[in-house]
């Protein structure tokens, strides 16, 4: 029962967050200069006639008072109707459905790659000399700090222009996915390693690690069975956040590597003042974030008996 109550509170909270996000988007996008009707007429600065603009305004309800528009907008969202894209003239859900798998795939592979890299870095740092360890942590700090657009451009210059090893643009092959994934995964890996390193060192120096060593387990076994499990917890807790950061990183990475995806849709929609498209993607991103966080928390509650009764 406690579990159901928790779920109900979560869903209620999520709905409030979604409503706030939807309202913020509605207000925000109307405060930016530029007439939404122009977005419908093929972009800003259109020389469309008065009749054409009036027809477009009527079609999309832009001639109604702003309060009515807001209520209509919420009403449609409540029915999961995201409307029709102003610039593409196609249903927002259809456009999102087309590109969503690309972005999710990119984010998931990058998340996995970041974890793999972080584990390797963390393990390596255990064996490293003091200088090696110092170099390692410098690398992590730099990796965690570099912006995606810089890293992506450098990788292209290095591996496509100079060496010619990898394609600069996505061509559907695994090789085409490598550079975008590295661009997203490296900064995240740097961040995750930083989180893992301290708790790993603490775990490896702890009583139970010593005891395990005394039982005759190899150093590698101890690292794998005890150290890593402890060290991973703080990083695992941040997976929800990490996934969200990958989705936002996708905006940049998809533009640089010319990959179709949600991020690229968002970028062009913002520039075109395509309100339904921006709203749809922003709400969807908020929903994904809430879901990932809730699932992570739910699993934690389910596994941990101490938490479930609370």
């Amino acid at each position, binding site marked *: 029962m406690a579990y159901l109550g928790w779920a109900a509170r979560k869903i209620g909270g999520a709905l409030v967050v979604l409503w706030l996000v939807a309202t913020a988007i509605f207000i925000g996008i109307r405060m930016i200069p530029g007439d939404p009707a122009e977005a419908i007429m093929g972009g800003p600065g259109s020389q469309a006639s008065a009749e054409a603009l009036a027809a477009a305004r009527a079609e999309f309800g832009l001639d109604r008072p702003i309060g009515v528009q807001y209520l209509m907008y919420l009403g449609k969202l409540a029915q999961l109707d995201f409307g029709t894209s102003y610039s593409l003239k196609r249903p927002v859900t259809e456009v999102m459905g087309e590109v969503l798998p690309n972005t999710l795939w990119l984010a998931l592979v990058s998340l996995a790659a970041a974890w793999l890299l972080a584990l390797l870095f963390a393990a390596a740092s255990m064996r490293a000399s003091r200088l090696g360890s110092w170099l390692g942590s410098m690398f992590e700090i730099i990796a965690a700090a570099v912006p995606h657009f810089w890293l992506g451009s450098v990788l292209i210059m290095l591996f496509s222009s100079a060496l010619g090893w990898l394609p600069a643009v996505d061509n559907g092959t695994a090789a085409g996915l490598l550079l975008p994934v590295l661009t997203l995964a490296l900064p995240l890996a740097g961040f995750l390693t930083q989180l893992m390193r301290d708790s790993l060192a603490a775990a490896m120096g702890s009583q139970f690690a010593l005891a395990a060593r005394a039982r005759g387990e190899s150093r590698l076994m101890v690292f794998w069975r005890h150290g890593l499990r402890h060290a991973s917890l703080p990083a695992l807790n941040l997976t929800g956040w990490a996934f969200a950061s990958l989705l936002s990183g996708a905006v940049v990475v998809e533009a*640089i590597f010319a990959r179709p995806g949600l991020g690229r849709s968002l970028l062009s929609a913002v520039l075109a003042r395509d309100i339904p498209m921006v709203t749809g993607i922003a709400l969807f991103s908020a929903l994904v974030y809430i879901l990932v966080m809730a699932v992570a928390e739910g699993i934690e509650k389910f596994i941990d008996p101490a938490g479930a009764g609370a």
Partner: protein
Amino acid sequence: MQKNQRAARVLSSALALGLVSAVLAGCSGTDTPSTADATAAPSAGGTLVYASGDAEPSCLDPHVGGNYPQALVSSQYLEPLFTKDAEGKIIPWLAESTEVSQDGLTRTIKLREGISFTDGTKLTSEAVKANIEHLQDPKTASSTGYLAVGKVKKIELPDELTAKLTLSAPDNALLESLSMPWTSIESPKALKRDQAANCAAPVGTGPFKVESWEHQKQVNLVRNEDYVAPVPEAGRSQQTAYLDGITWRFIPEAATRYAALQSGEVDVIDNAQPDTISSAAKDNALGHLDAPRPGASNRIELNSAKAPFDNAKVREAFIRSLDVNAGISSLYFDTAKRSYSLLSSVEPLGISDEALFTTDVAKANALLDEAGWTERDAAGYRAKDGKRLSVTFPVSTNQSVPAEQSLFQQFQASAKAVGFEVKIELLDLSSWYGALAKHEYNLVSAPYTKVGPSVLRILYHSDSTVPAPSGYFANNAQVKNDQLDKLLTEAEQTSDEAQRADLYAQAQKIVLEGYYVLPLYDQQNHFLYGKKVQGMGATTTVSSPTYYDVFLAK
């Protein structure tokens, strides 16, 4: 000076193949791939990969909206009624002949026989009517093409191949207007589909057709196997295109695009930037096509409707204070030629006056003194009655490339030396149009592409200071001059070509000598292509390349 019009579609293929590289080298001043390859016989087959840096069109039908990215892609599958020959003269294309009545109010267009759309529909006069009506229908949401056919009031069809257009006023720019991709002719049967279907795959008569559109990624074009060239080229081994198809990719990042060209992932890139063109010139494997757009030159307009540029002396002072040539030469790596004209160098009726625009700092200072800007404030700027000599310059980051933005920053520094404070505001396109609509600018650079000198009327007639319903107006310099208005109206209506040239020359003189405008260079339009690509060079009247003559070396 008129550059070579490269509407080389009508050049014979032998001429095109033999001379194109020479013509290009002459025009662009850069090397094309080894000329030995260019003389090879065209070989059919292969798919060319094109990478566009422009925003992906939201609709592949250039009637809808009507921008340059749409022109670039649609010229492969749609054709206009008229085009230009190698000398820049308007000639019939899908049309066979045309004549205009004495009073200039009736334009008769006769179509060629035996041409079909790729959906099997025959090209008849019904198509001309359907297309002009499609452009004029508010539901189409045309913002470029509908202006071009704005004076067409009635369309009658005396027979299957003849259309008779009745105009509200004489319009000697109509054929130029009907040569632009935004007024291309589509299948009337296909136009009857709903707009989404027509946007996804417009149906035309061109050498290629739209096979599919993978949104955000690419448009797949395939050869039209039944293509009939309206003006057949002698000596071609086949009347259809040589290429099997074109993969039209969208790669927004300039650096990625160039890397993809270098690694051979793509064959042609557009929106090539000065630094890339310059480095490509050193790379023998890459060819360069310099295709300046028609219409207006790229220029800075000075808003004469408000202080301080309501005073011609202050306008001239600003212009004289800048060292434009040095800036263009260094920031554009000598890939852009300085212009002293309101019109593009491809426009035969453009006039230039270099003497008006030479740098003269002493004169600039003297003019500002005369205009009463004699005080200096604490920051070193000139002032009058305690008010600083300050001008606002909103710059669209969508329309100004990084080199141009740097150029404007140089101008900012040179203008400061004579006492101007120039406030550059980098804005996205919507905010930029918003600033213009609210008259929050003293300086602005706004490109305008159109075929023919009638663009002058759009940009400098006082009617164009009246905003469109969206708030847009084209006369950013806010020129209001009765004599100029009269000249521009007469120039558009006369049927005498010599008189037309003379009237437009007088009109340009008024604008140039009034210091409303600082011309910089042609609207830059550079393409780079790989070694395999042969026969590049033909363009439409708006300088978008066509690929009918192009083939891939084996």
